[in-house]
């Protein structure tokens, strides 16, 4: 799919699909918060999930990151970054919320 020589129409279609999907995911997330059919904590979980899906969609359709071998370096870099970011963010939250808890 991220073959660079697919031709113009196919490329436009990729962006279009990405745009449509992102719009739908966005609308869904905002809608859930606006109409609040679920409990707040459930809504937050779903919203964060939808955000994650949208990020993957945008990586795929706008940044053309695929599992093809020739794009491996970039993918490796994303995965490594995700690992480091995950470590840093989750570590920060665990440590500081623990401190918070113990200071209460």
């Amino acid at each position: 799919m991220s073959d660079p020589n697919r031709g113009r129409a196919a490329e436009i279609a990729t962006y279009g699909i990405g745009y449509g999907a992102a719009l739908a995911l966005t609308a869904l997330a905002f809608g859930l918060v606006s109409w609040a059919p679920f409990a707040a904590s459930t809504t937050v979980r779903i919203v964060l999930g939808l955000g994650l899906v949208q990020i993957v969609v945008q990586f795929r359709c706008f940044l053309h990151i695929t599992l093809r071998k020739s794009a491996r370096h970039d993918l490796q870099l994303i995965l490594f970054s995700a690992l480091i970011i995950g470590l840093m963010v989750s570590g920060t939250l665990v440590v500081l919320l623990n401190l918070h808890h113990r200071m209460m």
Partner: protein
Amino acid sequence: MSAGDAMHPGLNLGQTDAETHARAGHDLFGFWIFLMSDAVLFALLFATYGVMLRGTAGGPGPADVYKLLTAFVETVVLLTSSFTFGMASISLKHARGIAPITAWLGVTLALGLAFLAMEYNDLATMVGDGAVPARSGFLSSFHALISLHGLHVLAGCLWIVVMLVQLCVFGRDGRVKINMLRLGLFWHFLDIVWVAIFSVVFLQGLAR
């Protein structure tokens, strides 16, 4: 590797310009690393925001200051600009002249500026209501995160202006193309960061 392979994130030039395509593989990798480093910067501000969420110090909290509708409109505007930038990239790759490229870039720029104007308006309203960053740790972290993203968008807009001038001066030469590809990564990246912002900041703050 040949012009038949994808060499970097974003739209690849491929056989439409094999020479620049090969160079882009090298040049864009560096920029891609920069974006990852920038992503860490944002991630840490997100973490800070998460930690300070409860530090409202008796001042306004998320639900008091966020507005669902404007956040939604801003999101749609920025998302659309990401799409129009994609169209600009496609014209850069396939079109003969520069007119379609500049047209799409112009639309993207307009959307970017509209986003900034709306965001500025939001922040100004908040400040008017006393929700200034100096009020509480929570507001400090909110303002810092949003403003950092805003500054990035501003830088992106300035970059678009520079690209428009370069397109007129140099046409579609190799360096202009590579710079456009870089700008593309930057612009799409900003939209991805915004997805995290509206999910983690606005929607989480407003969920009832």
